[in-house]
């Protein structure tokens, strides 16, 4: 009986932590953090279209006809996600798209690693073939997994402080 009560206490404590204002402030931090990630990633890929295309081509996954559209469109997709996250507009939808995009990235990097080709992921600009000794596939995957967890939190709890969503709901 006592243990059951303790269990109940833990669960409601968890509930409070996940639903309370502290969680919404935490959500704000996650939202802005992810916005910085997408903003940085997008801006780094905008300046040189040929470099962005080559970063995509180096994965040797997409056909040549899709290399440029993806290389050119992707940074703007990332920038759009960044802006929407800063605004806190449609946070759950944006988080779902973020997570999907990160899963694609992780799959792409894993595929390059598995096929034994030596590339820079081009995640934050750069990209293309690098020397075998300079590949950092594991770090790149772990980093993207961290961003994936941030997205997952926002899918689970899209209500955050100082968001357009909260303002619209009021």
């Amino acid at each position, binding site marked *: 009986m006592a243990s059951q009560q303790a269990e109940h206490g833990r669960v409601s404590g968890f509930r409070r932590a996940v639903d309370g204002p502290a969680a919404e402030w935490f959500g704000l931090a996650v939202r802005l953090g992810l916005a910085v990630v997408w903003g940085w990633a997008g801006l780094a890929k905008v300046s040189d279209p040929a470099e962005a295309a080559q970063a995509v*081509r180096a994965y040797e996954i997409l056909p040549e006809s899709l290399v440029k559209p993806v290389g050119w469109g992707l940074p703007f997709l990332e920038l759009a996600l960044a802006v929407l996250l800063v605004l806190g507009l449609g946070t759950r939808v944006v988080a779902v798209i973020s997570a999907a995009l990160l899963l694609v990235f992780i799959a792409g990097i894993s595929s390059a690693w598995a096929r034994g080709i030596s590339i820079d992921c081009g995640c934050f600009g750069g990209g293309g*073939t690098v020397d075998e000794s300079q590949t950092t596939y594991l770090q790149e995957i772990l980093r993207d997994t961290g961003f994936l967890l941030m997205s997952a939190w926002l899918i689970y709890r899209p209500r955050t402080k100082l968001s357009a969503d909260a303002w619209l709901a009021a």
Partner: protein
Amino acid sequence: MSDKNREGKRSARERMLEERAEQEARSRRNKKLVVGGAVLAVIAAAVVVGVVVQNQRSKPETPTAAPAGTIGDKNLIIPVGAPDAPSTLTVYEDPRCPACGIFERTFSPTVDQLEDAGKVFVNYHIVSFIDRSLGGSGSKYGANALGCAQNAGHFRDFHDVLYRNQPDETADTFGNKQALIDLGKQVPGLDNAEFQSCVNSNTFAGWVSAVQQDFDKSSFKSTPTVLLNGTPIYPKKGDEQISPENLVKWVDEANQGKQLGTPGSHGQSPAPTSTAAETNNPPSP
């Protein structure tokens, strides 16, 4: 009776509350749909605008202006030596690539000799991708300066000076246009205003990008890539390690029984005079 009445009232109120809750839920759902739709529209618009903008910003794969004397269907190649030489040596190099610097410092005297003897026609592809991974502009500005030197008929000499003075890969010395101009002063014929303005205004930037885009689409992934009559010979040809002696041997083997070419002036085309550069590069109206 009064009990019944109370019951009826309660259920009426309950019904009203239920309806209101339903209405609120519906409006919340609608709001969500509107917000979600707006978000997707914003993202789709951003991607479409991005592709259009980048398409306009990207430099064409066929350059609008190439240095005088360049060859190939898009004028991306800088030729050195006799075009009728029996063997062709194709070299892909980045001005900032350290392995290219080592290759050049080891092999350029040998390559110069082979050119001057009419044994090889050398085709240089000056690529510029190190800037992408290390940042800076040394690859691009260095490649442009090499284009400027080619335009003036002094590619070979400037190319050799450039690689002899190559900085550490991470130092972006060639990103400083003045440093490139100063190196030009070591080459007779490049210590002039024409070369300086060509370097300073990055005249062949579009050509430099086109050469790199061509390399991007090729199957070669690193520099230096060196091909003798289409066969890779760097760092090895088959099982044999490249060395100045082996390079001469391979070229002589390939040339066996063939007529040697007739190299022009100092292996350079156009000939290193300012008039040659002008006649090959008519000013656009």
